[in-house]
């Protein structure tokens, strides 16, 4: 099966600019996740979707981050405006509706904010 696709692979922007990331999950996976992984740390969940509804966005900085999952398939994550501390790898993952099932991760988007 095709894996989780993410784009772009790398992005460099200046602080206060905007940026958007795209994710195409594995076909048929109901759940979709965005994680932020700062260098040297484990991934931190930003937002979780089930189909096109939000399950958990408690750790999403909503003043600058937004995410949507139109039609319960693809998803975009946006940062506006970006701060230096947003420099990280943004990982998208998808999974089945079963808490015993593992998640499948994309290769991530590495964001550098200067």
């Amino acid at each position, binding site marked *: 099966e095709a894996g989780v696709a993410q784009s772009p692979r790398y992005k460099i922007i200046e602080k206060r600019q905007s940026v958007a990331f795209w994710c195409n999950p594995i076909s048929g996976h109901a759940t979709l996740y965005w994680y932020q992984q700062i260098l040297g740390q*484990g991934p931190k*969940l930003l937002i979780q979707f089930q189909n096109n509804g939000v399950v958990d966005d408690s750790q999403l900085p909503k003043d600058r981050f937004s995410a949507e999952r139109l039609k319960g398939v693809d998803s975009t994550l946006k940062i506006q405006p970006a701060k230096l501390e947003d420099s990280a790898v943004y990982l998208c*993952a998808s999974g089945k509706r079963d*808490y015993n099932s*593992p998640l499948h991760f*994309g290769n991530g988007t590495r964001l550098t904010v200067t």
Partner: protein
Amino acid sequence: AQSVTQLDSHVSVSEGTPVLLRCNYSSSYSPSLFWYVQHPNKGLQLLLKYTSAATLVKGINGFEAEFKKSETSFHLTKPSAHMSDAAEYFCVVSLNYGGATNKLIFGTGTLLAVQP
């Protein structure tokens, strides 16, 4: 509340020697536990998972982990390290939203170095 603690941030072994990466978990009920591996500039790949079946779980690339409820541990082992095993390893616990979906809580990671 669920959490995981990876006891070592860095582990260095020689090629051909055993690998032990330690993980302790905290969970109010029987957890699902996973080990993921992340090679440089790559996404996370599932190594193995424990979901309340056999306590000794075998994964890919010769890795295995043993679930010990009495010690709340889920340590990852491999009998003989290979150079290609050099990567970062994450222990993960799954938080169950009433069976409908899940949320993964990641440990802070253990960076494994393999010396020739």
